[in-house]
């Protein structure tokens, strides 16, 4: 029968994590059965906690706070990545304490986790692309299948005679708009698409065509807007609340 006395010597060192592995194992067997040792460990931990506070305080650089806040991404989703990150962390933690053979196994597992992480990232990127495409297709079908659908063809104006545009408009579902052959934009300018109404024109979107002069837009119907025509004008970068520049495309109901 082993007595409490032999363990009493170990309790404080245990609290400071200063026991060798064999002693620690022995002490941990004894600890749950001994209220005295539990108290000694608690006392030792209290001292350990307080020791940290005896160091003369130092001010961390202000940039450190920013770095931590930036590294902690504000948007967190429950994705497999989190679990993989935790798995990687556990492996890293365990890796520090093992013999070489086990260390190699952990290293292999770490590599497997890293590979899985990369795969998940790739798949997530693909999935998000596909989701975007699927959303676009569904919105397009929604608009084209609307009961109140109207089609308006837009003609190129003197500034862009070879340009054409087409708007599918549904007051209930939204706007599907496309344009082709828009001339390249000068620096600092942007095209702007307008709902022309009985009152003032309402901006629908800033239009930046691709290199081939093509542009496509899907947009929800703005509340209370009843267009009588659609128009594309050229405006200063950032757009304006009301059209000021030359008309490039125009089409009325």
């Amino acid at each position, binding site marked *: 029968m082993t007595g409490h006395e032999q363990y009493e010597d170990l309790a404080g060192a245990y609290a400071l994590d200063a026991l060798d592995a064999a002693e620690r194992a022995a002490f941990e067997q004894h600890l749950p059965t001994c209220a005295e040792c539990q108290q000694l460990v608690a006392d030792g931990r209290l001292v*350990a906690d*307080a020791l940290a506070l005896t160091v003369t305080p130092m001010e961390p650089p202000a940039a450190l706070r920013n770095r931590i806040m930036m590294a902690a991404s504000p948007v967190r989703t429950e994705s497999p990545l989190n679990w993989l990150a935790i798995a990687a962390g556990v492996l890293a933690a365990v890796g520090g304490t093992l013999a070489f053979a086990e260390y190699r196994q952990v290293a292999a597992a770490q590599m497997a986790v890293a590979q899985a992480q990369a795969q998940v990232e790739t798949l997530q990127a693909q999935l998000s692309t596909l989701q975007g495409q699927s959303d676009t297709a569904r919105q397009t079908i929604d608009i084209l299948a609307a009961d109140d659908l109207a089609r308006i063809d837009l003609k190129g104006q003197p500034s862009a005679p070879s340009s054409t545009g087409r708007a599918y408009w549904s007051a209930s579902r939204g706007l599907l708009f496309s344009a082709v052959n828009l001339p390249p934009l000068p620096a600092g300018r942007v095209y702007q698409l307008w709902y022309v109404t009985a009152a003032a024109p309402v901006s629908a979107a800033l239009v930046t065509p691709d290199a081939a002069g093509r542009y496509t837009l899907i947009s929800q119907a703005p509340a209370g807007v009843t267009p009588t025509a659609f128009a594309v004008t050229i405006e200063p970068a950032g757009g304006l609340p009301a059209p000021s520049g030359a008309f490039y495309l125009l089409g009325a109901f």
Partner: protein
Amino acid sequence: MDEAVVHRVVSGDHSALGALYDLHGRAVYTLAVRIVGDPAEAEEVVQDVFLQVWRGAARYDKTRATVAGWLLMMARSRAIDRVRARQARPVGTASSEFTIARLADGGIGQEANVITGQAVERLKLALQDLPNAMRAAIELAYYEGLSQSAIAERLGEPLGTVKTRMRTALQRLRLALGPDGTP
């Protein structure tokens, strides 16, 4: 209150992470510098600790430690690991990571004590009053993560002597803190 901030951080509240850092960042940084020596590396330790909390990879158990004690324990563990990695010390050291795992598991339940500023001042005086050899034993264990046998080796003293000194020193320091660390 501290505990509520931790829960908000774990549930993804970005501003709570800032609040937690404002409350404890300085203490964590101070301890990290004391252990690793290099301020730049200490910053990495601080970042590790707070991001670990943010990612929910470290669980806080209020029956084990105060929030400050918990953060400092993580900081100490990481800082000591870095010092060891630098020294490539293969055996003979106790494992700080195992302590973390054990503490996170819970087991021996009791309310964590809050340590007041006055108690810390008394502890500083008690540390100064310790004979050098005793203070060295405590500091080598706490700041360098050495086991008792590694300390004996470092100081060129018998293991039994180191054990006795550490035990006596801890008793004195504990007494200095007062009944439960409060004034």
